[in-house]
């Protein structure tokens, strides 16, 4: 603090020297110069250590390999709840084929509305496609493409992409579905969602949400309330 005051004093005195020399001389000018030079020599260095970021960037330049883009996959065919519990208290679920292998498919059923025994309360708002447009009547633990080829639940994106070409194209260019990780694949990997992470295949419209976070904005709030 005292050194700082010294600077200020010297600044004032030097300014006096410059501005008012025409009429006066200053005897203490040598003191002022001393104070000035002492304060100018402020921070002194110790040792130089190379920064981490530069080391990282040179490393990535040496190996320009790209990191993978991982698309999350469904774990497999869905399991149906039975409302039963096993001996350990865990809910019992069964595979689709548990029931569907014992009954033959009724091709007349196009929507859940005409189902009276199972799946009857299910909401379905996915255009005019019918159950068997996607579900595989030959093996209910899998899906089927429009040409009848079997496709696994884990590869559901192939199925969706048949109709939703523009979305699929956007997705492939990183413009649909969001991402986590690195935008620059030369520096790190990237993770992406698959279709059914965000869209329920039976009610594919993105669900409504309730905002939970509101900045308390000082000036906008007031002007907004006037409108």
């Amino acid at each position, binding site marked *: 603090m005292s050194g700082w005051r010294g600077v200020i004093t010297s600044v004032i005195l030097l300014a006096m020297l410059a*501005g008012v020399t025409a009429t006066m001389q200053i005897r203490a000018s040598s003191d002022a110069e001393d104070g000035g030079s002492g304060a100018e020599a402020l921070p002194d260095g110790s040792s130089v250590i190379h920064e981490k*970021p530069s080391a990282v960037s040179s490393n990535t330049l040496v190996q320009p390999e790209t990191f993978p883009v991982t698309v999350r996959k469904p774990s497999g065919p869905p399991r149906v709840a039975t409302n039963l519990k096993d001996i350990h208290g865990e809910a019992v679920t069964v595979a689709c084929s548990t029931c569907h292998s014992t009954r033959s498919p009724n091709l007349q059923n196009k929507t859940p509305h005409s189902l009276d025994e199972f799946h009857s309360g299910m909401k379905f708002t996915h255009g005019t496609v019918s159950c068997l447009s996607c579900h595989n009547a030959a093996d209910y633990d899998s899906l089927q493409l429009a040409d009848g080829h079997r496709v696994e639940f884990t590869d559901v994106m192939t199925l969706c992409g048949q109709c939703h070409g523009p979305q699929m194209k956007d997705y492939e260019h990183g413009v649909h579905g969001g991402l986590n990780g690195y*935008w620059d694949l030369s520096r790190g990997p990237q993770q992406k969602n698959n279709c059914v992470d965000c869209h329920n295949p039976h009610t594919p419209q993105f669900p*409504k949400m309730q905002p939970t976070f509101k900045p308390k904005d000082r000036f906008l709030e007031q002007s907004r309330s006037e*409108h």
Partner: protein
Amino acid sequence: MTTDNASPQEPHDGEHLKPLLPILDQHSTRRTLLKTAGAALGLAAFGEALSPLMVIPENVSVDEFLQQHYKELTDEDKKKVFARLEAETKERFGANVTITDAKPIPGVRFAYAINVSKCNGNGKCMEACNKENNHHRGVDQSYIRVLEMTKGSMDMEHGSTTYDHTVPQDDKFYLPVQCQQCDNPPCVSACPIEATWKEDDGIVVVDYNWCIGCRYCEAACPYHARRFNWELPEIPAEEVNPNQGYLSNRIRPQGAMEKCHFCLHRTREGRAPACQEACPTGARVFGDLNDPDSAINYVLKNKRVFVLKEELGTKPSFFYFFD
């Protein structure tokens, strides 16, 4: 006032003491009196003009007061400054943090795009920004404002930030607004002390320690993207994000301006910005304009793209598009 003090002293000094100034030895004529009075007045005025420098605010250390502009700091200086800031954060917030100085990636030019067909106004981006960037928890500050807009209107001045209902509403669309990282930034021109500038990768940054808090930039920004720190942010120690950048998310001092910096402490290391990762609708697209195969260039080439307040000529690096 000072002249009154100076002139009566004159005869005494002249008689007995060795005078400070030779002029005081001279005979008391009208000329010397006027000279003395003039000199004393000038000296007093000069001292008064410099007096603010004598007082360093209580919450500013001498080192901070004497700290140079970011661009004039050597690597050595930066090491000291960052160590000081880390120690201050430890003392004030009880958090161990690392402050780094991520530099622009050579050849990279950042841009952002938001799909207004997808954005549903849920506000997760604002929340992620608040957490990532060590914003004041008391006012839930964020660099982003999501505006609820009436369909058919493109005037962001009539958007509402205070909506509190399930989203999206059928007659509304949602427009998240944050710093547009303009190529012709009015805030940078407005700053009287060059405390804010545009970096090579397109990000407009602020040296929070150089900023004097005059808020000219806030007034100059047509997107209301700049925020002022009215008080020192309050953040619980366990919520402080320890990965901090000097020009980005380190805890800002009171009285400094701040703004979105595209999470440069993340994006300059190749990572996605926090708001993009948080967006549950996938409406946000971020990337390198100089890479012809980047997602952002796909948007610019294939979508219906617009920028906010194009007529102002600010040339934003921030785009909005429809599906």
